[in-house]
């Protein structure tokens, strides 16, 4: 459902020259699966996912979502995904109901089916108490629910969550993760990026650990623990991050004069 192949994204930086935010990332994600993208801040998770959502174009490499290429058919890709991240805020001056309705309309949904779908979603996420409240007046948890509703209103086969729980309190985060699990059970293809190992253990079938723009390891959690001889995910994570940092420091030491 999602096939990512040797994705590279470089940005020009006047101070440091070209910087590779993502460097040769490949993975695959299947329906009915939650695929975890685990990495520290600045690892390249958001850039990777932004390429999948078509708002960034890869420098090289390719990505297919539901059979559509993100570069050649961005339109079809956007029709088939639901994307939620910290950067995708909701409108302050629209009510919860209006926001979700708006995105339903953008996805070309007709009035009657849209209304039915929205009633269903508002029941499922228990959002009926703040239907008519303006976005600006919603609490963080309510906003997050509106965001999920917005993401799934057109019932896309692929869902991408970029650090959905960051900045949420435990209660709200728990509800949110529960809903993501329910979505998986509906057969959706889901990517979840996070820096929380706890979330990965609870939700993900397979996981990729990403650091310095590169994939450090990929597989089921059990597989990874066995191959790298680590007792738990946390140890594994630090082990891989340390390894990557050491390699990078070594590479820098051999070419000190490069800009």
């Amino acid at each position: 459902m999602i096939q990512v192949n040797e994705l590279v994204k470089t940005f020009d930086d006047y101070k440091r020259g070209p910087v590779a935010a993502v460097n040769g990332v490949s993975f695959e994600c299947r329906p009915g699966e939650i695929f975890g993208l685990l990495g520290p801040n600045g690892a390249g998770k958001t850039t990777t996912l932004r390429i999948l959502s078509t708002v960034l174009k890869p420098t090289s490499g390719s990505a297919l979502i539901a059979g559509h290429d993100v570069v050649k058919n961005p339109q079809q890709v956007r029709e088939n995904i639901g994307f939620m991240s910290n950067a995708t805020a909701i409108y302050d001056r629209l009510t919860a109901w209006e926001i979700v309705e708006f995105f339903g309309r953008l996805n070309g949904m007709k009035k009657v089916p849209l209304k039915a779908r929205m009633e269903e979603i508002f029941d499922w996420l228990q959002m009926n108490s703040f239907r008519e409240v303006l976005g600006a007046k919603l609490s963080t948890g309510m906003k997050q629910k509106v965001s999920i509703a917005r993401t799934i209103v057109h019932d896309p086969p692929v869902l991408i969550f970029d650090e959905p729980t960051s900045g949420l309190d435990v209660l709200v985060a728990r509800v949110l993760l529960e809903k993501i699990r329910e979505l998986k059970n509906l057969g959706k293809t889901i990517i979840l990026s996070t820096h929380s190992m706890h979330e990965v253990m609870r939700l993900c079938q397979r996981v990729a650990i990403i650091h310095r723009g590169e994939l450090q390891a990929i597989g089921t959690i059990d597989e990874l623990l066995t191959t790298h001889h680590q007792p738990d995910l946390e140890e594994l994570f630090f082990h891989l991050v340390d390894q990557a940092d050491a390699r990078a420091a070594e590479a820098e030491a051999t070419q000190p004069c490069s800009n």
Partner: protein
Amino acid sequence: MFKLIRPGVVAAIYRRELLDVLRDRRTIFMMIIFPVVLYPLIGYVLVNLAMTIQEKKRLVVIINAEALPKEPALLAPGGNRFAPNLFTRSPQDANLLDVNQAMKDSPWADQSQRDRLLRDRIADLVVIVPDDLTAQIAAGKAGNLEYVYNSADDQGQMTFNKVQNVVDNWKQLLLNKRLLADAKSTEYTQPVKEQVRDIATRKESSAIVWSRIVPFILVLMSLTGAFYPAIDLCAGEKERGTMETLLISPARRAEIVSAKFFTVLTSSLVTAAMNLLSITITGWKLLSDLSSSASGGGPNSALMSSISLPSGWIMLIVFLMLVPIAAFLSSICLALAVMAKSMKEGQYYLTPVFMIAFPLTYMTLVPGVELSPVYSLLPLTGTCLLLKTLLAGRLDQALPYMLPVLLPTLAYTWMALRWAVVQFESESVLFREAERFDLKSWVVWNIRNKAEKPSADQATLGFVLMLLAGWFIAPLIAQIVGTVDGVSTVTVILTQIIVIGLPSFILALLLCRNPLKVLGLNSPNDKRYLWLGLILPLVLHPSVSIVYQLVETYMPMAEPIKKLFGGLLVDTPILLSVVTVAIVPGFCEELAFRGWVLAGFRSANRPTTAILISSVLFGVMHVLLSAYQQFFHATLLGIVLGILAVRSGSLWPGVVMHITNNALTVLLGAWAANSPTSAGLLFSDTKSLVYHRFVLVLSAVLAFVLIRWTLKLPSAENSANSADQSADSRPISGGVLAQ
């Protein structure tokens, strides 16, 4: 762009944006509350201010007033007023000028003390009467009257004017007395009496007043109404994080831009309309108040009644013309707002927009600026002139210019929106991180990381450098080289090399890995293009000369400039003339415009767009560094040269064509002057080089054949650039060339 638009999606986004705008207290305030409250407030302040200013008294000190003649009297009985019968407007005005009499030994008589007292505004005017005034007048001679005042002080100036007026009337009475004494009628000093009849009706003169005010109000208000919502809907959404949410929806970029444009346009229209309405109502109220208060038949009421409210159909015209003005300004605001990454950055763009919009609007007030083919091409100026002409009721003059004005405006609007869409498609504009910008590391980065091709920004930089060099360095060159009779050939050659050629060459050297290839200094992909460069100008010259004639008819060059251009080549050997106006400019201008500028714009645009942009810049450069009449054929030439450069993949065919084209002007002129008989075979008028009809037709046919043949030549654009051009790049059609 419009093929890709689904009305349903645009409507959905438009509805949302409008809801957003309507729920924003600030926009509602700017759109509705502000105009409704502001103008009545201004009205009140104006009325009150007018009253306080009117009641202010001025003080005139008269030294030695006893020496004034007793009959006719300058002063009223009591001596502290001027005689009321001497005031032209109303006898009551006498109460506004206090008169103090001073003795010859008072401080007022001493010059230094008097000056100080006047500067301290103790009095506004001092009149000094000599002892012998009455005697001189009685003797039939002219007596002296001396005024002292401070013209740097507004009150002093106004008092001086008033008193002079009073004294003029007094002098007339004195004169009448003399005439009576000599038994001559008062007509003796007035051999001619003029009668003036103004055929303008009250309606017409008030239409003129409105036609001057309304364009300003419309531009100012539609700009205000468009600017803030545009910033809010683009930069604001980026800042609030909702832009990315919108971008990952299936809405297309063109749909988003269209919907935002319609929202901005709506706000702009409503704001302008509300302001106009409020101004009209306030103005009507003010006028009726003032005319009822001044209903003594004084001159004040005459002035007031000359401005009446515009009639219903005029209001309709205003609202209709508001649409193109608001659409143009909305599209510009939107494009700038997309560029801004934050509301703060967006605010910075307001001043430049005003700075450009206002001179364009102000031009409509300059006497002699009327609807013409040139002005109709200027954004805002064209629409405002059309509006002005319509308001003045000159429908017959306005109608022929409807399309010439509205089509360019439509084109500019479309171009600005296109630019907005392109920006939406470019990720750097939407995800520009706030990076620390310092000039040094930027320059170092650009020089170190030399690019394969220049960017559009760098092309623009080259153009700006040329303009700056033209402004600052060209006069220096002229000064150093020294000029004889205006322009010398050495100055022209040096200016071409340093101002036009050098900036692009240096930029290419500094910023690109392979400067020679970027500038196109390689051989063309097909040698036949070089021959084409030689033949094409010969064949096209008759057709192009029609453009020259049209320009000369509609926008004749001012005589001094014409002389300057003509003087350049007089007495210059023909070979030197060819070097000066053909070979050097041919090479330098090609290097700059078909080399650097075109290459830069090609990196981000389709070849057709890049050619058009570089040609317009080429035309603009001629306007700024030469004469605006050259805009049209420079732009046309730029298009043909651009096509040649793109298709041949080399600068040289263009250089050959440019040189041939410029040299033709010199050579044909010389030929026609030296042997008019042989030149008569080609020209029906050998003085101004007007071709025979049959030559024109032949040239057009030949040009058509040649262009058909050209399009069959292998194009560098198809072979070399197919790899790096985007999928939607289209080869240039013959349509552009056929112009």
